[in-house]
C-alpha cells in the first residue's frame, strides 16, 4: 500500500488551521464525503490500497465494530467544520470505497450514511455511491442499500476473461456480472463497471471481449484503468522475479484507444481520462475531486481536503490523511482524538499544479486564464503536436479559451501538465 505523504502533525482535536475561514463562495459549492471501508475477503495481488482481510484484524478494529468507529469520525468532522465556519449547507455526494464496502452488512453502510445525513443533511438529488465486489451482493442487499438512500453502485468487474481474472487473483465468476448489474438496476441503482487493462497475458482480443461484455450489460458508466504495478505488491515481486511480464506502453495505449472506440460507439463518452458515461451519468463525487471541491474522507488512511481563500497571504488549502491501520484509527477515535496522521498546507504553487493536473483530466478542460504566462506559452505547441484541441484552445464568442485534451493528449496527460505548468 502506498506510504502516507510526509506532512506536519494534525492537532489532537483535528482543528483546521486558523486561516481556513468561512467564505461566502465556498458554502454553496458541492461538498463530498468519502468513507473508506478497509476490508476484503482476499487481498488481490495487484492491489496496494489500504485494506485488510478479516484474519489480519481483531479487537476494536473488526468489521462488526467498524460502522460505529466511522460514525465517531463523522461526528468529529461535523464539529471541526462547524468550528472553522465551514460546515456545508448539505452534502452533495457520498462515496463508499475500499477495500470492499459490501463486506460490511448493508445495514452497517446505511447506518454510516444516516450519520452523514444527520450531521450535515443530504442535498436534493445527492449522489450516494458504493463500490462492490460482484461476489458480495445479492438482490436483497442491493435493495436495502437503495432503500437507505444509495443511488449508485460501482462493481469491480476488471475483466470478463477467466485467465485475466486469475492473474489478477479476482475470485468472482465473470458470468455473474450481467446478473448483478440487472439486480442493481432493478433496485433503482445507477450502475458503473470498473475494468482493468494491461494485465500480464491479456491480449488485445481479451480486452475487446471485456469491454464488449461490460457494454452488453447496458451500463451507463464504465471506468477503465491501466494496470499499475505498485511497489510492495505481490505482483511487483512476480515481475521482479520475471514470473510475469508487464505489457509495454504501446500495448496499453492501443487498449485505451480500443476501449475509447468501443465505448464511444455505444454512446458512452469520455468525461475524464479513465471514465466514460452516457450524458448525465457521470460520477459527480469523483468530478468533485477533479474540480478541486472540498471533501472529508472518513476511515483509516482516508484523505480530506479543505480549500482556503486564495488571498496570497496564507496557504491555498489544507489536505490531511488519517492513520492507516484500522486498529490505530479506532484507538484514536475511542480516545476522542482526531485520527489525522499528518497534513500538508498547500502553497499557491502546489495548489496551482494540482488545479492544472486535475482540471485538465476532464472533458470540460481547464480555463486557460488559470495558467501562468509561461504555462500559456506552451499551449500553441501542444495544439500543434495534437495534444490539445485547437478550437477549444482558441475559444469563441462567450466560450472562454480552454485546454481540452485530444485523445492522444489524454494518453499523454502528464506530459501536457508538465508543459502547462512549466
Amino acid at each position, binding site marked *: 500500500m*502506498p506510504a502516507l*505523504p510526509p506532512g506536519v502533525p494534525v492537532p489532537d482535536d483535528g482543528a483546521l488551521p486558523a486561516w481556513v475561514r468561512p467564505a461566502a463562495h465556498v458554502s454553496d459549492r458541492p461538498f463530498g464525503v*468519502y468513507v473508506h471501508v478497509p476490508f476484503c475477503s482476499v487481498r488481490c495481488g495487484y492491489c496496494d490500497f489500504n485494506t485488510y482481510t478479516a484474519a489480519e484484524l481483531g479487537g476494536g478494529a473488526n468489521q462488526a465494530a467498524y460502522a460505529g468507529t466511522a460514525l465517531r469520525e463523522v461526528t468529529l468532522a461535523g464539529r471541526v467544520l462547524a468550528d472553522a465556519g465551514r460546515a456545508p449547507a448539505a452534502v452533495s455526494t457520498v462515496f463508499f470505497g475500499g477495500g470492499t464496502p459490501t463486506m460490511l452488512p448493508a445495514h452497517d453502510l446505511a447506518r454510516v450514511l444516516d450519520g452523514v445525513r444527520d450531521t450535515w443533511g443530504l442535498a436534493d438529488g445527492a449522489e450516494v455511491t458504493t463500490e462492490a465486489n460482484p461476489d458480495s451482493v445479492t438482490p436483497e442487499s442491493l435493495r436495502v442499500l437503495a432503500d437507505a438512500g444509495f443511488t449508485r453502485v460501482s462493481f469491480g468487474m476488471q475483466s470478463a476473461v477467466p485467465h485475466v481474472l486469475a492473474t489478477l487473483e479476482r475470485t468472482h465468476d465473470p458470468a455473474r456480472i450481467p446478473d448483478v448489474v440487472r439486480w442493481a438496476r432493478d433496485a433503482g441503482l445507477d450502475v458503473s463497471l470498473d475494468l482493468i487493462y494491461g494485465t500480464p497475458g491479456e491480449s488485445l482480443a481479451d480486452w475487446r471481449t471485456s469491454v464488449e461484455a461490460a457494454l452488453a450489460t447496458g451500463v451507463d458508466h464504465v471506468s477503465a*484503468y*491501466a494496470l*499499475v504495478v505498485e511497489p510492495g505488491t505481490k505482483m511487483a515481486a512476480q515481475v521482479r522475479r520475471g514470473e510475469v511480464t508487464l505489457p509495454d*506502453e*504501446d500495448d*496499453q*495505449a492501443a487498449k*485505451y484507444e480500443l476501449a475509447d472506440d468501443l465505448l464511444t460507439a455505444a454512446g458512452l463518452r469520455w468525461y475524464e*481520462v*479513465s471514465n466514460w458515461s452516457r450524458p448525465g451519468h457521470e460520477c459527480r463525487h*469523483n468530478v468533485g*475531486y*477533479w474540480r478541486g471541491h472540498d*471533501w472529508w*474522507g472518513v476511515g483509516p*488512511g*482516508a*484523505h*480530506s*481536503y479543505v480549500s482556503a481563500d486564495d488571498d496570497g497571504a496564507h496557504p491555498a488549502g489544507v*489536505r490531511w*490523511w488519517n492513520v492507516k491501520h484500522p486498529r490505530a484509527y479506532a484507538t484514536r477515535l475511542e480516545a476522542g482524538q482526531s485520527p489525522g496522521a499528518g497534513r*500538508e498546507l498547500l502553497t499557491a504553487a*502546489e495548489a496551482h*499544479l*494540482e488545479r492544472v*493536473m*486535475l482540471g485538465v*483530466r476532464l472533458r470540460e478542460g481547464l480555463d486557460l486564464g488559470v495558467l501562468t504566462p509561461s504555462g500559456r506559452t506552451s499551449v500553441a505547441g501542444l495544439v500543434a*503536436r495534437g*495534444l490539445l484541441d485547437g478550437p477549444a484552445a482558441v475559444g469563441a464568442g462567450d466560450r472562454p479559451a480552454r485546454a481540452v485534451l485530444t485523445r492522444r493528449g*489524454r*494518453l*499523454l*496527460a*502528464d*506530459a501536457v*501538465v*508538465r508543459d502547462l*505548468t*512549466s
Partner: protein
Amino acid sequence: MPIPGPTLTARIQPNATAPELIRNFCIIAHIDHGKSTLADRMLQLTGVVEARAMRAQYLDRMDIERERGITIKSQAVRMPWELDGTPHALNMIDTPGHVDFTYEVSRSLAACEGAVLLVDAAQGIEAQTLANLYLAMENDLEIIPVLNKIDLPAAQPEKYAEELANLVGGDPDDVLKVSGKTGAGVEALLDRIVERVPAPVGDADAPARAMIFDSVYDTYRGVVTYVRVVDGNLNPRERITMMSTRASHELLEIGVISPEPNPTKGLGVGEVGYLITGVKDVRQSKVGDTVTNLAKPATDALGGYSDPKPMVFSGLYPVDGSDYPDLRDALDKLKLNDAALNYEPETSVALGFGFRVGFLGLLHLEIVRERLEREFNLDLISTAPNVIYDVTLEDGTEVKVTNPSEFPGGKIKEVREPVVKATILTPSEFVGTVMGLCNERRGVQLGMDYLSEDRVELRYTLPLAEIVFDFFDQLKSRTRGYASLDYEPSGEQTADLVKVDILLQGEQVDAFSAIVHREKAYDYGVLMTGKLKEIIPRQQFEVPIQAAIGARVIARETIRAMRKDVLAKCYGGDISRKRKLLEKQKEGKKRMKNIGSVEVPKDAFIAALSSDSAPAKDKKK
C-alpha cells in the same frame, strides 16, 4: 661479503665516489613480472633495508613521508655492493612502464649504462618489454637478461632463456635465473651488474651538466627533481640554470635516496640523486632538460630533450555544469605534477562548458580522468578520444583539428592522420586472428619473426586513431588475453577520412561527431544511431536520428513518439502523491539537455560516450 665494511664504505660516499665505482642500471619488466619484489630483495641484500625489518621499514617510510611531507617514490635508490674486495655504489633507476610514457622511459634509460631485462619464467617476454628492450639497445645499454619466478611450478626457464638469448644475442646459459620471492640468484645478479654494466664516464672538471630524468610535485617541498650528473658537480646553495628554459634557481637541497632522501654535500660525475629548488610547477623542471651551474654554465645541453607532445585528445565536461570552475582549478593543480597535460576551454552544444584536453595516450587519459574524479571529487563526461588531424584545404590553407566537430566542411585537398609502429607479440596459434584485426584497422605489415617455436612478433604500421578506438580490447579478446601490444609514433599518412555527424531531428549533436575512414563511416553511423535510439527516451513526437557525411545521410533510426504518459487513476487519496511525482518529473526536466526540441537526459550522453566508443581500457602499465 656483499655489504662493504666501514673502510670500504668510506670510498663510496656521495659526492666522493670515483666514477669507476658507480653502476647505474634500471630494470625493464612487464607489470606483473616481479620487478618490485626483486627490487625489494636487492634493498635487503645490500643492507639498505634490513631483512627482518622489511615490512616495518616500509611502514616507517610512510611515516617519514608524513613527517617530512615529502613523497618519495623510489625513482633512484643508491645501494652499496662489494665484489672482490672493491666497494661499489649501485644506482637503481626506476622506469615508467607504459607506452604512453616512452619519452620518459627513454630519459630514464639515458641515465643508465645497463639494464636488467627481467622476464617471468612462466610467461616469456611481452610486447611492451620488448619495445623498452629495443629502446635500451638503441641507447647502447648493457643488457643483463634475467628470468624471474623460477620457483614457480609453471616456469619454463630453458624455453624462455633461449627466447631471451635470441633477442639480446649470446648464450642461453648466460641468462640468469632468479626468484625475487625466495631470493635465489639475486646475489649473483648484483655481482653480474657490477661485472657487466660499464662505469659512467664524464669530465669532473668541465662545467656541470646533469640530465633530469624525472620530476615530481610534492605539496610541502615543491618540485623534487631527479638527475644524473654527467660532467662536473652540483652543490647545495649554488645557483643552477635549466638549459632549455634558461630559468635559474637556488639549489636548496641536493641528495641521494637510500632509501630515504639523504641530503649530501653535492653530486659528482656519474652520480644519481635529487634536487630541490622550491619551484612549484614541474614545467619548470622538465624531464630531459639539462641542469648546469649559473656561474659557470655549460655551452652544450645534453642531447635528447624534447617537449611532451599530446597524441590523443578528448573533451572533458562536468556532468553538473556548475562544477566547471572546479574542473578548471583541478586541471590547474594536476598540471603542476604532469608536464604532458595540456588543455583549452571549449564549449559543446550538447555538453556545455568543458575542456579539450591533450594526452600522451589512452592510459594517460585514464589516469588524469581518474585523478580528477577521485582526488577532486568531480563527475565527468569525456568524449570519445581522437587524434590530431592535419587538413589541407583546396586553397592551400592548413588546419589542425583536435576536435572532430571542428573538421572543416569546405573543399578538402588532403587529410593526414598520425600513424604508429606497432609491435604485437602473440602465441603463434593467433597469428591469423591478429593479422585479420590489423587488416580491419588499416594496418600495413612491416614484418614478422618467430621469437621461439610458438611465439611470434608482428610489426605493423597502424593509424593511431584505430588504436585509440578499441584495438587493445579487441586484441585481448580475440587472443584470449595472450597477445600484447606496444606502439610508438611514426609520423603521419594521408587517408580518405570523413567526418560523420550525428543529428537529432536535424540538429547536429557535436559531442558525437567523429572522423573516420570513409569505408567505416557507415558502420559508425549505424552503431551510434542504434545506440542513441536505445538510450534517448521517447518524446511527444517522432524523433529521427541520422548519421551524415556533410549533407548526405548514411544511416537513420527513428525514436517513435511516446504514446502513453498518464497515471490512470487520480482520486482523492492519489492527489498529493501524484502532485509530488509531477514535481519530481519537472525537476528531472531541468537535468535534460535540449537538442533542438528534443529533451535528452545527460545520462544518455554519458551512456552513449562510455560503452563501445570509450577509450580502450589499456591494462598495461
